């Protein structure tokens, strides 16, 4: 899938994969790839600046923790991150429903 069209939704997708549990960077990227059925075609390195930006915004909180015997920077969703995710989800559902209604089925 086109990486530019995905980039606009990257923040919401990151928040979504962190909804259930805190994850470190590689696990976040693996979760994005798994949930997108492998269609997420972004240079994985570009996810890290997005994580830092979401942290600066207060939507994520990071800490160093032990993951499989290695020290990793782990991110978890903050209260404001959960709120933003809920809003983005509703927006997306309304948008996709509207586009679906207009395009209809072939």
């Amino acid at each position, binding site marked *: 899938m086109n990486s530019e069209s995905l980039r606009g939704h990257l923040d919401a997708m990151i928040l979504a994969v962190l909804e259930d549990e805190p994850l470190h960077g*590689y696990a976040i990227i693996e979760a994005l790839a798994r949930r997108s059925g492998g269609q997420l075609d972004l240079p994985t390195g570009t996810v890290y600046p997005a994580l830092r*930006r979401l942290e600066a915004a207060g*939507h994520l909180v990071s800490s160093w923790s032990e993951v499989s015997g290695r020290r*990793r920077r782990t991110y978890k969703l903050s209260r404001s991150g959960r709120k933003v995710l809920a809003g983005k989800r509703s927006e997306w559902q309304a948008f996709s429903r509207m586009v679906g209604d207009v395009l209809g089925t072939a």
Partner: protein
Amino acid sequence: MSDLRAEYLASLEDALVGPRRVRRSLLREAGDHLEDATAGYVEVGLDEEAAAARAVEEFGSVEEVAPHFQTTLAVSSARRTALLLLTVLAVQPFVWDGEPAATPEGLLYRVLDTGVEVLGLLMLAFALVVALACGIGNRWFHAGRSVARVGALGTLGSGAALAVLGVSMTIIAGGPQLQPWALLTGFILLPVAGTSLAARRTLATC
């Protein structure tokens, strides 16, 4: 660490300019990712070298990834500069409240005095806006290098104006007394020089 990963990280490091602590932490996270991704590919049967090559390829070329990392560094540097300026300005009222009561009565001095107060307030508001824009402001828009550049240029310009006003007022107040010059140097000129240095470093990251 494989040679390929080490080479990639070294190239990425060479391409980045900015606060050392943030740069190290970004590079460490990139290194951790490459290590995890390599281990993941080794687990599914690739040899170490092929796994590292795949991990590096998926991470993105330095040309693709470095601009994103550099934006993080620029915004972080701009935020630090703005917080430094806020700290410098926050102590000013306490310093100048203790100023000797004998100040010149001339019109020019009064104009400069008002100018310093207005400029100080504007700088305070500016620094606060930049610090917020580079932090929590990311909730509403993505703070990028243009915000960092504006923050750095604003800090340099207003700092220079503050220094000129301070020196002019001290000259007009006249006299060879040491105290006004010591106050000016200690609480205006040196702090302004410090924030200007930080602002120049921020400009280099943009």
